[in-house]
């Protein structure tokens, strides 16, 4: 049957023509209101590129003379208004060239802001970064339900650079404005209305009426309130800025992340003086763009995009069947259901199935799903003690306990049950796929799909290939990963795969350091100073000492290179049940209120840091040599998105390159001489050149 809703919904948002010589805008006039539709050529997502702004400039020149009743700017892309500035275009700009381009862009938005008739941005979907700034240059904003505003620049080591730093604080409560820019947190439709970002929030069907009201001045401009007035004095701003600084420092130390502090200084010094702030914004943005932090964070942005593009295409997966309702299975099932897949979750016992539903409901809360969204997600996730989903699923994810015989038994039973074309994926983290493949119903349709805990927070998923896996299987798994809004890293079967192979030495070396009598707090604080999100001792406790012991053992047996020894007391602690955070007691005694340090060391021991970090770089090289990952970018991306590996340093491979391969080699040899053969550089360094 025809989908009626589809039949009565137009295929495009507009059929307005592009004016001659213009590639990114469509223009039409209706009811005296001139409309400019942003429609970037050759892409599904608008970005605010140099071309977009230049073309807008030329269109505005003509419009200014036409004197229409009003000007409306909106997007012709169903996905949203604009995803931000054109990062590809500006990331390579430096110094004076950057400033010049910025000034040109500012000039266009200033022209827009100065037009003598009502200007109205009609925005839907994502209104981010440069797109937000374009909307801010209009006199009014009409938001369509579901609209989402945000300044994500801080995640790229930058702050807004097209007027956002002075236009947003002038429009809404300056403290709220600063929070948005400092945290990168977005404001969804009703919040945007409350903050005063939009003058009206309407469904698409009332846009024309709202536009007419705005054109006639019948729409109330948002009020900025008394706090804005209070913050016009320098003294008041300094007080607020002090609070913002200490808040920002906790999350992003200025040493590693200069942008938030630059933004605070900008506002503290020039707040309320738009002209001065505009000038300072351009200078500050250009300076930040030159910083290593911004360049590395922009690189991380590109790496993310690269991972995503490796998971393009249709996955052909509507129904996912997860076997094993342990912590991982439950998270995988819940997350897949939240992202729209139909899910059956199988376990032999009812209790973990119940716990999985509770966990799913908690994730829905944590992700701020509405009551209806939560209900629908939970409806899509069916506990399945009888394994009914096995024969219906397009993808079966085995997340059973890490016992080879158990997994083989499950695979044997699946042989007669899987529907034709179904993929079987294992979430194993420690059993080589080569060992499991012979038991799989169809080796070509079998692969690894290695999630990280908790799935709802950790973005990376390793799509693990083996000798007999079909390319189509791996492509579909990567597409599935993208479809559930995770990032696929395509890797090859290897002990620990990619991420655990690289990360394990970090944990094991830390345990050795503890064994040598180093203070665990010193170790963790040093790692934080390097920029790791969590120190290795704290991480070992979080992962679980039992798991560390098991992983270390299995890697030691499977790798042809020496691993750090495991201190004897580790097995004893595991024996006593002091396995880490989940037991309330591990290397830290959480039951006694002990918590790992959360502030980086002021003056960390560089050799200690090298002992923790360089083995990861070395393991990355080993993985490249063994073709576990196809290139250094994949290693960096996987480590950043699976473990939070100091993103402003660009990942372990990029870090090694920045520091210089010869310097790293020299350092490794020194550590080898001092601490043993585990630091002997991998032969793969020679191939990197």
């Amino acid at each position, binding site marked *: 049957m025809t989908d009626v809703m589809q039949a009565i919904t137009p295929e495009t948002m507009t059929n307005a023509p592009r004016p001659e010589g213009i590639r990114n805008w469509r223009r039409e006039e209706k009811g005296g209101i001139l409309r400019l539709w942003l429609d970037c050529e050759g892409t599904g997502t608008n970005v605010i590129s140099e071309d977009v702004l230049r073309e807008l400039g030329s269109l505005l020149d003509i419009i200014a003379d036409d004197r229409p009743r009003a000007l409306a700017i909106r997007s012709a892309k169903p996905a949203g208004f604009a995803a931000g500035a054109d990062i590809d275009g500006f990331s390579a700009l430096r110094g004076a060239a950057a400033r010049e381009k910025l000034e040109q862009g500012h000039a266009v938005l200033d022209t827009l802001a100065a037009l003598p008739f009502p200007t109205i941005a009609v925005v839907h979907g994502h209104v981010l970064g440069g797109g937000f700034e374009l909307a801010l240059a209009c006199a009014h904003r009409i938001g369509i339900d579901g609209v989402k505003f945000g300044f994500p620049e801080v995640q790229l080591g930058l702050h807004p650079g097209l007027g956002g730093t002075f236009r947003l604080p002038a429009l809404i409560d300056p403290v709220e404005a600063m929070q948005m820019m400092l945290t990168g947190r977005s404001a969804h439709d009703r919040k945007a209305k409350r903050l005063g970002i939009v003058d009206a929030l309407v469904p698409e069907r009332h846009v024309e009426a709202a536009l007419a009201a705005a054109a006639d001045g019948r729409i109330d401009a948002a009020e900025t309130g008394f706090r804005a007035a209070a913050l016009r004095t320098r003294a008041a701003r300094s007080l607020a800025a002090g609070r913002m600084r200490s808040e920002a420092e906790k999350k992003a130390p200025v040493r590693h992340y200069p942008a938030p502090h630059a933004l605070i200084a900008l506002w503290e010094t020039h707040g309320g003086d738009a002209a001065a702030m505009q000038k300072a914004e351009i200078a500050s943005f250009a300076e930040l763009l030159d910083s290593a932090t911004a360049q590395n964070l922009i690189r991380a942005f590109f790496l993310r995009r690269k991972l995503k593009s490796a998971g393009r295409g249709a996955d052909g997966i509507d129904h996912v069947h997860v076997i094993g309702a342990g912590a991982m299975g439950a998270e995988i099932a819940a997350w897949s259901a939240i992202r729209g897949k*139909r899910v059956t979750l199988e376990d032999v016992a*009812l209790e973990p*199935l*119940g716990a999985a539903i*509770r966990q799913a409901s908690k994730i829905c809360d944590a992700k701020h799903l509405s009551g209806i969204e939560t209900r629908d997600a*939970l409806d899509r996730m069916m506990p399945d003690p009888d394994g009914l989903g096995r024969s219906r699923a397009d993808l079966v994810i085995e997340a059973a306990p890490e016992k080879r015989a158990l997994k083989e038994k499950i695979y044997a039973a699946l042989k007669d049950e899987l529907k034709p074309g179904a993929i079987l994926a294992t979430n194993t983290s420690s059993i080589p796929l080569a060992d499991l493949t012979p038991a799989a119903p169809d080796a070509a349709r079998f692969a690894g799909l290695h999630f990280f805990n908790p799935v709802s927070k950790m973005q990376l998923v390793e799509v693990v290939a083996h000798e007999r896996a079909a390319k189509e299987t791996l492509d579909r798994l990567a597409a599935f990963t993208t479809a559930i809004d995770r990032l696929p890293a395509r890797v090859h079967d290897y002990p620990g795969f990619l991420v655990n192979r690289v990360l394990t030495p970090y944990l094991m070396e830390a345990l050795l350091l503890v064994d040598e009598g180093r203070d665990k707090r010193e170790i963790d604080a040093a790692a934080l100073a390097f920029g790791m999100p969590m120190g290795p001792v704290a991480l070992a406790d979080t992962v679980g000492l039992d798991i560390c012991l098991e992983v270390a053992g299995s890697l030691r047996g499977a790798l042809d290179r020496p691993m750090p020894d495991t201190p004897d007391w580790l097995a004893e602690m595991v024996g006593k049940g002091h396995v880490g955070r989940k037991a309330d007691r591990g290397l830290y005694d959480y039951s006694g209120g002990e918590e790992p340090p959360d502030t980086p060391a002021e003056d960390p021991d560089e050799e200690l840091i090298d002992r923790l970090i360089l083995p990861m770089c070395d393991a990355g090289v080993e993985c490249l040599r063994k073709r576990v990952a196809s290139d250094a970018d994949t290693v960096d991306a996987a480590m950043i998105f699976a473990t939070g590996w100091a993103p402003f340093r660009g990942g372990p491979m990029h870090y090694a390159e920045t520091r210089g391969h010869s310097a790293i080699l020299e350092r490794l040899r020194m550590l080898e001489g001092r601490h043993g053969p585990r630091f002997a550089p991998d032969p793969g360094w020679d191939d990197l050149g």
Partner: protein
Amino acid sequence: MTRPVYLVDGARTPFLKARGKPGPFTPVDLAVQCGRPLLMRQPFAETAFDLVILGCVNVIQDEMNPARVAALRQGMGDEQVAFSVQINCGSGMQSIDTAFRYIRDGSHEMILAGGTEALSHAPLVFREEAVEWFGGMAREKSALGKAQKLSEWRPDFFSPVIGLERGLIDPITSLNMGQTAEILAYRFGIDRATADAYAVESHHRLARAQREGWLDGEVVPAFDREGTAHEHDDGVRPDSSAEKLAKLSPAFEKPYGKVTAGNSSQITDGASWVILASETAVEAHGLTPIARIVDSEWAALDPAIMGLGPVLAATPLAQRHGLACDDIDLWELNEAFAAQVLACTAAWQDDAFCRDVLGYDGAFGRIDRDRLNVDGGAISLGHPVGTSGNRIVLHLANAMRRNDARRGIATECIGGGQGGAMLLEAA
């Protein structure tokens, strides 16, 4: 054209005792909990049904037309037609009967028919005077008027009436359902000890059925958001005994009444679905029917003796098909009250009643306890009113298959003075 109609599968939730506060599931939640696994275990897609019919008495405000809400939530597709039916305690059987007739008459091939009820969610109802006061307050425009209205407020406006309590009172006779059972106990001479003994047996039978796994597949676990997996009907008391029940005081007519909480059905939440299919659908999807629905009947009588509804509804089925008492191998007669079930069987054994009321020459016959409610009933597992009629048909089909029975009747009394009955044959 009349075509054969098959019951091919069905599943229900455990029946969960109402424990003085809203249970974890709304009516549609319950329907979805058992509907999902039922649909998942079929060899056809969720979208293969022509129609969904769901019985529900206490529909909550957020779930108008619960059949349609359930169909959508179960992934049956935007294009799934679905309607809800209500005939009080017969609602879950009404859905089956409507489906049966549609398929029999050739307009439909496959229908999902169910019943659902969350009695623990029955609303609190404001007293009428309170509602009037609220309305008056809203109409008052002036401050003075509002102040005056405010002075008319009485504290008892906020003492709500439990909707459930009101629902169990017959609106014509103003008798509580339990009182109608008292009337039957009196007229048919059912004493307290016999009623209690019947109730004890109900608990023991359900406990045995649970133990033996006879409910596997019929009852599927329900999972709530707090993480509890509800696996079994939780009102069962395997250790129930005549001594224990004898200690209870009358629930409805103190101090001399015979009907107690112990020999009445329990107030529970639960849902049940069955899949009905034509021969064409059975062949097209390669289904294995459990039973064939042969015929159905509805009857009505004085609301004060609504408990005799089964006798008036089931007897015409027997008469129409020339069946004597012994020709019916199994009976599911919904256990609203032990005294009411016993009054029904007494009526069928009563020469005068059968002659004067049913048109027989003498007594219809004795329905042995080993043919009646063989795995317990509403006294042990509860009576979610909109669901029970569906459950007894489903369970009759399953029990017939297990016991190699040829014929069975499922029948129920209906608050308001009605009865419903269905005749099933082994497929």
